[in-house]
Structure formats: C-alpha cells, structure tokens
C-alpha cells in the first residue's frame, strides 16, 4: 500500500502544497518536486553536508529527513539567500571574492551551515570557523580558501 500524504511547506518564504509518499527524502522533495536543485545530494547518509538546509532557522541535513516531516515547517535553501545574481548575500559574495570554491558541489551546504554559525559567532576565530566547517566535506579546496571566505563574510556582515 502506498500512502500519499498532503503537506504544506514554506520554502524561501513561499508556500508549497504537494502530496508525498512517506519515504520521499526532504532533499529529493526540494530538488525533484519543487525544482530547487541548489540543495545538492552527496552521500545521502548525513556525512558530507552537501544537502544542508535551514529547518525552522536551524541547519539540518535534508537527506536525513522525510518530506512529510516538513509539513507546516519553514525551510530556507541556498536559493533563498540572494534576491538575484546581481545581489548576492554577503556570504556568497565572500566565497566569490576569496575563491572559497572550486567545483562548487559542497558550496550550498557550506553556505547553509555558515549562516546560523555567523549569527551565533559574529566575530569568529579561525579555530571556531574550522570547527564549524567540520560537518561539511570539500574534496577540492583543501579548505583554506573556504576559511578565508568565512572570515571575509564575518567582516562584511558586521
């Protein structure tokens, strides 16, 4: 028997109504049902951090939640950060300026992890930044430029 459950989810301040099968992962819901492909899917078991989103304002792995659990909740994805490509969020602008990405696969997850981190740590030390990045894997950069980008973002966002 396949259940189909109606849900209403607010994503990037827009309400969406859909019917979902319980086993649909939130990450797949965002990508396949809503077309918000900025949320990337890497490992699908909560290790790589590429699928990180904000769930009611707090960072979470969207591959470790079911879409049906998001009913009535508020989600922000990377698409919710900037108004358009000419008005990037200061965090995105900093990643651009400091070369905080190469292939870019891990970037959305890192951005969505750093948004709440910078809110809680407006003036972070390098050690705090590195610790905060430990839940997101990047296979290109060696992290140095990501750390630089987060430092730059903290300056810009003061």
């Amino acid at each position, binding site marked *: 028997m396949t259940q189909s459950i109606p849900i209403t989810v607010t994503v990037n301040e827009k309400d969406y109504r859909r019917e979902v099968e319980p086993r649909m992962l939130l990450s797949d819901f965002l990508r396949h049902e809503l077309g918000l492909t900025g949320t990337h899917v890497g490992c699908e078991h*909560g290790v790589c951090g590429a699928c990180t989103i904000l*769930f009611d304002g707090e960072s979470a792995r969207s591959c470790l939640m079911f879409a049906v659990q998001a009913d009535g909740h508020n989600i922000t994805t990377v698409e919710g950060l900037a108004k358009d490509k000419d008005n990037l969020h200061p965090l995105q602008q900093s990643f651009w300026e400091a070369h905080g990405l190469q292939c870019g696969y891990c970037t959305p997850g890192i951005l969505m992890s750093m948004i709440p981190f910078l809110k809680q740590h407006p003036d972070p030390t390098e050690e705090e930044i590195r610790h905060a990045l430990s839940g997101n894997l990047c296979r290109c950069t060696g992290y140095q430029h990501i750390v630089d980008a987060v430092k730059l973002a903290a300056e810009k966002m003061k």
Partner: protein
Amino acid sequence: MKPAPFEYHAPDSIEQAVELYSQYNDEAKILAGGQSLVPAMNFRVVQPSVLVDLNRVSELSYIREDGDVLRIGSMARERHLEFDSLIPKWAPLLAEAVHFIAHPQIRNRGTIGGSIVNADPAAELPVLMVALNARLKAKNKSGERWISAPDFFVGMFTTALEPDEILVEIELPVSFPRTGWSFVEVAPRAGDYAMMGVAALVTVDEAGKCGNAKLVYLNAGEGPVEAKEAEQLLEGEALNDELMESVAVKASQEEINPFGNIHASPEFQRHLANVLTKKALKQALQRAGETS
C-alpha cells in the same frame, strides 16, 4: 540509497504514540531525530514497514529540575542539551560531552532518547547515562517502568526495551558533592565517531582520598563499558601518578574489549584508553577540588 516504502504515522500525544506502536509491534520503528535511523533506512540496512514519528509529540521535549533530579524528555534535541542552562549547572559531565556528538547540523535534529535507544557502542550518550547512573522511563499501553542505565544497555544496538515500549524520560541524579568530572575522546576528525573515549567521575574527600569513581568507555565493547575493577582501585586512595597508571592499565588492558575498526586496531584503542584514562582522572581530580 533510497528508503524502502513504509507506512507513516505522526501522533501528537504520548498516549497515541504508545497505542499506535503497540498495534504494529515488531514491524514498526520509532522515528526520533532520525540521524541514525534514516541513514540506515537509506542504505536499506533497516526496512521498517511502519514508522511512528515522535517529532510532533511536543510533551516529550523538556529539560527541568525536580528536587534532586533532572528530568529530560526523550525528544529533547542534543542541541537543546547543549544550550540549556540547567545542563552545565546540574550535569556538567553531560555539558562537556555533548559538544563531541557529531556536528551542529546533526545535534539540531538528534535527540537524547534516540541516541540512547539506538545503543551504538561508539555513541556518547549511552556512556554518559551509565556514568551518571541515569534512570530511563519506558512506557507501553499497560503502564510505565523505570530501568537503570546499566541494565538498559544489553548489547550492541540492543536495549532492555520490550517491542512495544517507548523511552519517554531520562532522570539524572544531580547531587554529586565534591565530585569532579571529565569527558575525553579521540576521533579521526572533529565530529566523527571516536576511536576511543571515556567519561570519568571521581569523588574526593577533604583528605584528598577518592570515594566513588566511575570510568565508562565508548567503542570499547558491545555497549558502554564500565571498568569496575579500575574504579575500585581508586576507592579510599589518594590519586597519585602511580595509582593513575595502575588504574589506566587495569581498565585498558583487562576490562575493555575493543574490536578495532578501519581507523584503529584494538591495540591502538587500548593505548588510547590508557592515555585518556589518565587525562580524564587528572582533570576530574582537579575539578573535584574546585567544586568542594
């Protein structure tokens, strides 16, 4: 890498949850934070035919003082433990250890009850429950019962819960006069599963002699491993370097039973246990002096 189909229920009260869970018995799994269950479902290592999701049972999410105990609802998030002011005040060992649990993104969802019931030998919370002598309240349709943490963990990923019982509350004793604490672990990277870790509690009297001591290890056997003989070596003795060495040797060579994994051989795990035991004891001893 996608879960097998299942039937989904999201009750909004404990009564409803217990009722639903008892209907399905062995076929159903409880979904708490989902940070261990969902990966296992994505890999199809676990294929429950029914999920009972507790995330809408708001009455299971609390941390409160109650006389000489602290009561924590089983759906309190690990992030909640990290930021609630009652935890450092009444359970400093737990406050110290919670930062070692995975990453903030995981702690935002992961729950205390979920981690306890998952009973992963490499997880921090089961070890802390044994070290703190927690009592765990299980509920089913016919009523409630309390299980002490050492009796709760019966094996690898196995607990004393009956198939229809749900863990609803964790009770922690908070009165530990003249007691120092320490939690230390070594992981390949911050937030990874630790290769070895230990939770220590040591009571020290005015003359500097140790009273009650707890040494409980993670990733050291089939569940949280308490080094009871090593603890007894401490009782009634003043803690010096020589005693610390004997305690560390006893625990790491004779009492724990690490299996080894891709990151560490059993010999290396025993070496880590030896070093971490001494580090934890030193810190606990120092803190016992400060809290007297």
